[in-house]
């Protein structure tokens, strides 16, 4: 499970460099996210631009990551591919997460305030 991270505008930008988050890797994804984002900036932006496919196990893992960040920290999403976006929309998890269309939008708010 390859994740790339960078700190950007006082947020942690996590790029998932994998084509799938499915039942074969959902637990590994959650564990790796705990490693890279277990502590750190309050705001975590998960970039799913490379992820073509996410099943219900992967969706559950993303929800679990949000919970493991704990109170006072937020998990936001950006760069959803069409199939992944549809899974979030159908399950109404698009109401639970702040979803940005792309990386620029994910970090634009902070920049305009600064």
């Amino acid at each position, binding site marked *: 499970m390859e994740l790339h991270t960078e700190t950007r505008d006082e947020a942690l930008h996590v790029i998932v460099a994998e084509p*799938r988050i*499915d*039942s*074969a890797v959902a637990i590994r994804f959650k564990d790796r996210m705990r490693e890279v984002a277990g502590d750190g900036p309050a705001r975590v932006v998960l970039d799913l631009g490379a992820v073509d*496919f996410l*099943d*219900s*196990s992967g*969706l*559950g*893992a993303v*929800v*679990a990551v*949000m*919970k493991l960040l704990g109170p006072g920290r937020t998990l936001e999403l950006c760069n959803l591919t*069409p*199939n992944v*976006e*549809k*899974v979030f929309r*159908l*399950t*109404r*998890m698009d109401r*639970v997460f702040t979803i940005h269309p792309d990386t620029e939008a994910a970090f634009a708010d902070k920049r305009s305030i600064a």
Partner: protein
Amino acid sequence: MTHPDPMRGGGLTPSNAGQSPADADAALPIVVDANPMGVRSALAEMRARFAPTAPGPDMLGMAETVLAEVLNNVVEHAYRRGGNGPIELRLERCGGRLKVDVRDYGDPMPDGVLPSGALPTCEDAEDGPPEGGFGWFLIRALARDLSYTRENGQNRLRFFVPLADA
């Protein structure tokens, strides 16, 4: 009467590996072991067979989502008691739809009926949004004409899924 053993392999149907899809191959069942990597190979084979003829950006998106949930359920529930049996997948394109027939030899559906697929809500869990329970919701949202039968130790789930992008 289908026997569980013939053609069971590590993933891809042997005669189809590395070749362009042919009409004869389309009728062959895809047989995989009931585990997460078996599910992956079944989905890859589905794409290999139908992607070249499907128009549009990704007409197999809905099919892949539904099939993944159906196959994951077989792995996690039908064969949950330590079984690692086969899953047989038969696919046929019917115009704008994919006709799907999934067979396994694990436990029957509870009470012999398909789950309702109600969407889990935040109210169901005390600690925020649900982390599971989405599988049957997605299947019911995207599949059409679902039917389930249990005969001679075989589960058989049949349905159609539109060939449409997300």
